[in-house]
């Protein structure tokens, strides 16, 4: 396990995220995520990244290391804010959130985040459908992508707007094994999620 974490830390450092360590997520009871914006009931053993991401809207967990699988939580994003931390003069900016966004606006915002921040060179939408998330009318966005590391990954984002704020959970994992392995737990966590 330690080797996995060391590898995970190194890999995440290379990808630009500053991860200082991981903490095991309690497997019982409700757990606040995304700076307390949401609460979920974890399924399975997950490790929460301790990082500079505390100042960002993102929080991520992993089971087998961030190269293999991650779950992101983004909560209570206000009108005009982005789902990632970015500077005003960045050459390429992830589109900011607006409460009036249509489903295609929400999904292309996530796609741009992957292309800009995760270096996705190939990005394919495989499904967009209406779902209930956080008790709200939401969107389930399924996709796959590949970046410079030549590893095909799959992803599922659950998005909902409540009180004019955006809430999002995303699972990403390697198309070979890890995405499929984590998907049932992710779906269970998404079903258990609630807003504070």
């Amino acid at each position, binding site marked *: 396990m330690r080797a996995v974490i060391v590898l995970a830390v190194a890999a995440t450092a290379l990808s630009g995220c500053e991860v200082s360590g991981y903490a095991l997520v309690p497997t019982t009871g409700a757990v606040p995520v995304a700076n307390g914006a949401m609460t979920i009931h974890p399924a399975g053993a997950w490790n929460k990244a301790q990082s500079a991401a505390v100042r960002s809207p993102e929080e991520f967990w992993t089971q087998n290391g961030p190269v293999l699988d991650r779950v992101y939580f983004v909560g209570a994003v206000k009108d005009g804010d982005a789902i990632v931390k970015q500077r005003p003069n960045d050459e390429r*900016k*992830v589109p900011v959130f607006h409460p009036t966004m249509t489903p295609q606006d929400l999904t292309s915002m996530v796609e741009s985040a992957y*292309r800009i921040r995760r270096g996705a*060179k*190939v990005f394919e939408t495989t*499904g967009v*459908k209406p779902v209930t998330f956080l008790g709200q009318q939401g969107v389930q966005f399924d996709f796959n992508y*590949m970046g410079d590391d*030549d590893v095909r990954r799959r992803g599922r984002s659950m998005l909902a707007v409540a009180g004019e704020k955006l809430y999002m959970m995303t699972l990403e994992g390697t198309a070979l094994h890890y995405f499929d392995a984590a998907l049932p737990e992710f779906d269970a966590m998404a079903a258990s999620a609630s807003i504070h």
Partner: protein
Amino acid sequence: MQASRREFVGRTLCGCLLGSLWQPAAARVLATDLTPLVSSGYRPTDADERGLWQACDRLEQQVASSGLLLSDAALKSYIRGVLERLLDGQATDLRIYPIRNPEFNASMTPNGMLMVHTGLLVRMRNEAQFAAVLGHESGHYLRRHSVKNWRDIKHKTAAMSVAAMFGVAGLAVNMGLAMSLFSFSRELESEADAYGLQLLKGANYPPGAAGEIWAQLIGERKASARERNKLYKDRSTSALSTHPPTEERMRDLTETAAALAKESAAAHYDARREAWLAAVAPLRPMLLEEQVKLNEPGASLYLLESLAQDGWDGLLRYYEGETYRLRAATGDSERAAQAYAAAVAAPDAPPEAFRAHGYALLRGGNGEEGRRALTRYLELAPHAVDADMVRFSLNQH
């Protein structure tokens, strides 16, 4: 681990060290007295070059199986045709690998592996411009620049070689050596520029095409800087710049091309624009999607307006709307709506333009027309991956 190694090898051999990328150029080299140092069927003889080729062969095996490869037989056949125009029989020594990557780039390894980024394909306006890049890369190949660079690096200190592998940050350990390394690379780039112009001229492409590329890139960068309220900076001012000194390079290329044209004023050049447009037309939706979804609106709008010089079509209008939609600045909703409306009025509008048009109308309060546009989208793309979502939106309004 395999993946990270692949990335490392790719960057190191083909990017930083070999200088075979479309990269910095130094003082102008005249396009005279440059003869090929590689003949058809050339194989390396000494240990240095054999080692280099073996490393590149291993890299090529990985590239050939990469998921980022654009497998398009028609495109590869077209590129081979351009290479044959430039190099005649020697083109058979080269293997072509189009790569999904929105950055403007191309590279050729010493063993004859040509990699062409999709970000290059989207920016070229005619075959002559594309041939200018291939000519430049062929210049590196035919003048065996990589082995020269490789030996030069080997003659520097061992510490320096290791540092070089880790890029500019590592190079800071010895600024003097780093400067000489980059200066040398720039000389080779200038030689490759000059050699490329010779090849262009020999294939009856207008030599001025090479300078046009840099004018377009400068225009795009200036548009991007303006968009962000930043001053455009020609990055050649940085001694350690890994980006092209574009103003200077454009000037050199233009002057050399003019001199070449003067030598043979009667030559009939053909930029083969129609052939180029026909070759990239099937790829254009993918190429524009890659660029526009990066949400770099200044560059994207510049590119779209460049491509629309001969008139806007449904596809270009759709991506103009997408650019405004993603930027979402004041007034962009209206600009996007106008662009989508223009797109769906064109006979070649992609189905997605109707979806975007429909949502724009719904947002603008025009429910009836919005529903009609979304319905049209579902008619055109009944099995679309977001059909359920669009049907749901229809039922809501």
